């Protein structure tokens, strides 16, 4: 597992926001991996209500974009916000998404709905990888063509399983550069 320089201050950079009934273990594992792999101090917020405002009855799913807009308006001292939901996410153009964010945006959301695994802890590992991927997008990274990079696009849970828990050297460099910009030289 990649390690970043330890931060000496305790200021949180990203808050993890459980929305609805999300297993607390999943939240903790996501927070810990973002801290370890990306290098962002994570803070877990108390659970928020299920995002019914994002529900689309025609599709029986929740629009990720509406959840992102809601997360951006959450009052908090952290720069970035990552929501975790149990419900099935979609976008206007895609049937489903594991996670969603805006490139260089302030919010991201990850759904555990399609990440279930027969492997013990498999779901949590998949969630952690998707969360790190979406955090990369928030930092401004696009999809990576290197197959073994967390920023590579994954359209199936099996593909997510094949990813190691690290960035490729180019993306790692880019993450570090973005963090210096966000965190002011740390």
């Amino acid at each position, binding site marked *: 597992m990649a390690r970043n320089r330890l931060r000496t201050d305790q200021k949180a950079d990203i808050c993890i926001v459980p929305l609805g009934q999300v297993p607390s273990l999943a939240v903790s594992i996501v927070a810990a991996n973002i801290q370890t792999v990306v290098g962002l101090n994570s803070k877990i917020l108390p659970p928020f209500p299920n995002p019914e405002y994002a529900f689309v009855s025609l*599709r029986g799913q929740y629009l990720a*974009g509406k959840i992102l807009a809601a997360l951006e308006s959450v009052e908090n001292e952290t720069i970035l916000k990552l929501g975790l939901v149990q419900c099935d996410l*979609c*976008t*206007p*153009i*895609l*049937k*489903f*998404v594991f996670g969603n964010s*805006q*490139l260089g945006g302030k919010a991201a959301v990850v759904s555990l709905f399609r990440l279930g695994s027969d492997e013990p802890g498999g779901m949590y590992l998949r969630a952690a990888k998707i969360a790190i991927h979406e955090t990369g*997008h928030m930092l401004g990274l*696009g*999809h*990576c*063509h290197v197959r073994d990079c967390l920023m590579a*696009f994954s*359209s*199936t849970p099996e593909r997510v399983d094949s990813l190691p828990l690290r960035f490729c050297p180019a993306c790692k460099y880019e993450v570090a550069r973005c963090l210096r910009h966000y965190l002011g030289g740390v």
Partner: protein
Amino acid sequence: MGQSARILVVDDEETICESLIEWFTMDGYEVGSALSGPDALELAADCPFDIYLVDVKMPGMDGVELLSRIKEKQPDAMVVMMTAHGSIPTAVETMKRGAVDYLCKPFDPNDLSIMMQRILTQKSLREENISLREQLIEQQEGFYDVIIIYSEAMRKIFGTIEEVARSSAPILITGETGVGKEIVAKAIHHKSDCCGGPFLPVNCGSLAESLLESELFGHEKGAFTGAVKARRGRLEMANRGTLFLDEVGEISPRMQVSLLRVLEEKSFTRVGGSQSINSDFRLISATHRDLPSMIREGLFREDFFYRINVITLHIPPLRERSDDIPVLADHFLKRYVQETGKHLEGFTQRALDILASYHWPGNIRELRNVVERAVVIARGRLIGAEELTFLNPRTDAASPCIGSLRELEIHHIRTALDACNGNIVRASKQLGVDRTTLMRKIKRYNLVRA
């Protein structure tokens, strides 16, 4: 992902456009969007896209009509149709009109990803196919146009090519007609960093100015009578490759100004167009003319000359490198023996002596023509002096003239026409007479053009 394709999303629903823009931007594509068919055509007119994602159902101009209009202007555009209500008849109709795929909204992320990979692979294969075909045609046409490096003079030239090929500096190749300037230009291209790109030759002497302008800059549909569709010019097609301007001395001063601007700014517009197009290419020019003299006479621009002539390579005429003649003759003999199936083994010593002593005003092109003719009329296993009587060594500048003045004049005119591929304007300049005089002599002596 290092994508090089430009994508245009066309859908009357703004959320769909935004969603797709977000998706493709994550993958590193350059994405644009339009909410209607006319808007899409306007955007594409300014700067065509590589891939279009078009919604079938739109008010006004629907997706099927837009597909046809896009294909009309850009036959090689890749168009994917999107619809929320898929129907087989519509799918068949759009595929018939040239769509590459037909997807139902919302997409499965995996399907969208696979489709984009497939389209890009198809695009890449198509471009590679075109490039390989062009290379194959070039190879077939110039298969035997290998460069013979035997004489000291040519070895020095190729030493220089090895040194200058890697730089991006413009090169001017000078030399008489038929010495092999284009072959040398190709050799430079293949040894340069542009070798992965195209080699685009343009014969500036064979086209009228208006046609040359269209050939170089391309044109938009309707730019002039006969411009039924937009066409890319050589300047655009040479991007990341080499542009070879043959007979650069024939370019008019007005065209020299236009080209000078292109060489300095690396951008231009098509004839009848307004959109600026960028093209980064390596320039190689060639001429048989004495450009410094033309500058003094006001027929060639000095600023253009210095722009195209950072490095000069002079190819000496064949008569100044007679060591190459037997090697070249043998090379051409093998070529024509293979083409004709004749059993010829070589030249007699007498034939080689004749070849070595001839003046060769048409240089290598003339030598090739001579060998081809000799192969056709040869009877035995060797080409001898009797197959070369048409060369008539009596007209060689180094030999004393025998025969009447009329015979001398006929042969000299015929040789000049052969050397210039029948081009009367060039032949008249080579002979030092005006075109009308030459035409009169051709008529008087009943000469047939080569």
